[in-house]
């Protein structure tokens, strides 16, 4: 038996099929993951994401501290509530985790980190905290529900009530405290929506109200097909401590400017850039029948070999898609070893889907 979120009993009562995810007992689907996927692209779906960890960074030097431990630059966050997606690196430039960081006020930032890396991340954050006299406060008192889809905000706002009318004016990548909720216009699906943080004991009641409003319960199966269609990395698959953001499609999240900002891992990344980055993360589409899966070998004739980091069947495209780490010189066609057969795949820029429509 693993760790359980405040919604564990709710999922069981709903007949969810449960699986272990990073040590947590989580719902993989409530029936059909493909139907759940379509519900998010077409209307509204919701996910229990309470397994992720919210942590507050408190102190007058919070901004300075985060500018040192994160590869992206929180100085870009000017308006209260604005958030940024960033990697946290080790001294070799390898990725410790990816996260979202919010600027709430000058002495209060908030980060949301992955479930499987909770303990590692808190230890890492605390290790550097002393030098800046900031306090790292894990918020294990909070649960989090993500509502995603073109109708999600409308339905969620109606379900929660006038308390959160203000949240409808949030910009993308911005959050706001509207007690007892902290509402953020973020998500992991490529659709518009909110991630709602709230006191753990209130989560089952909110889940029920959202369900009554017609928002479809969605599990980790749909979560994975949605994020991959949206071209979003999954920590542990698409990157980990052994690889840098530069080889993970995340160069855009590393703020090398301003050059005076030192951050953990900066010098290792600069050295890699100077040598020439040998690999890149690309999107792949399989035209024929079959499913691309993590760890399958990618053959690039005349160039070398690579590996699928994440693969799945895309319900929106009705074919298989993947992210793969391949030699930098890879052009537009590769072959993938799928269950012993070399199948041709097309190299594409991702995301694969935007606003419910195929881009590839």
């Amino acid at each position: 038996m693993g760790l359980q979120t405040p919604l564990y009993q709710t999922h069981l009562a709903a007949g969810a099929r449960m699986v272990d995810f990073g040590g947590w007992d989580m719902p993989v689907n409530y029936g059909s993951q493909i139907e759940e996927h379509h519900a998010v692209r077409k209307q509204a779906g919701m996910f229990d994401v309470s397994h992720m960890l919210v942590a507050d960074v408190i102190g007058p030097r919070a901004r300075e501290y985060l500018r040192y431990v994160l590869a992206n630059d929180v100085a870009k966050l000017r308006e209260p509530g604005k958030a940024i997606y960033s990697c946290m690196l080790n001294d070799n430039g390898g990725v410790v985790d990816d996260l979202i960081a919010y600027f709430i006020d000058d002495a209060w930032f908030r980060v949301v980190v992955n479930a499987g890396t909770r303990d590692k991340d808190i230890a890492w954050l605390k290790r550097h905290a002393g030098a800046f006299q900031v306090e790292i406060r894990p918020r294990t008192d909070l649960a989090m529900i993500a509502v995603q889809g073109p109708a999600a905000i409308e339905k969620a706002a109606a379900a929660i009530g006038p308390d959160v009318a203000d949240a409808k004016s949030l910009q993308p990548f911005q959050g706001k405290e509207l007690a007892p909720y902290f509402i953020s216009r973020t998500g992991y699906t490529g659709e518009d929506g909110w991630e709602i943080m709230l006191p753990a004991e209130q989560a089952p009641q909110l889940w029920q109200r959202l369900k009554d409003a017609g928002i479809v319960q969605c599990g980790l199966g749909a979560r994975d097909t949605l994020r991959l269609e949206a071209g979003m990395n999954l920590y542990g698959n698409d990157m980990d401590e052994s690889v840098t953001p530069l080889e993970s499609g995340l160069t855009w999240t590393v703020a090398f400017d301003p050059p005076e900002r030192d951050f953990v891992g900066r010098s290792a990344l600069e050295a890699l850039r100077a040598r020439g980055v040998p690999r890149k993360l690309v999107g792949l589409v399989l035209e024929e029948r079959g499913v691309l899966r993590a760890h399958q070998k990618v053959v690039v004739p005349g160039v070398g070999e690579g590996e699928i980091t994440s693969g799945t069947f895309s319900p929106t495209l009705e074919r298989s898609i993947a992210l793969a780490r391949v030699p930098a010189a890879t052009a537009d066609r590769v072959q993938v070893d799928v269950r012993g057969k070399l199948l041709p795949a097309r190299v594409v820029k991702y995301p694969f889907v935007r606003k419910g429509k195929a881009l590839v």
Partner: protein
Amino acid sequence: MSSSIPSDLKYLESHEWARSEPDGTITVGISDHAQGALGDLVFVELPEVGKVLTKGAAAAVVESVKAASDVYSPVSGEVIAANESLSGSPELVNQDPYGQGWLFKIKPSDPAELGQLLDAAAYGKVVENE
């Protein structure tokens, strides 16, 4: 989670079911437990009509978002039909694993083999112990 295990069918430990038809042929599919464990199917590879199968040999492949899985033939014999609908609608296996989700039909070469399969109670124990 409890799954449906019709009492009039025979089963393999590997989660295939076999139904004896009035005309002496055998219809084969995968159990409710199997379809639930696999999740939504996206592709099904069926044997060609006319193919001769041996009991226990890999005969078909069902592939879900999660994984690909071999389907073994419960009996020896010649394939006389394959469920064409599954090519456009593999989800029929999830929705109706014992009915519209049937995979293929065999003309058995050795009727005694049917008796070697598990009955519903025995298969129920297999599922319980998984």
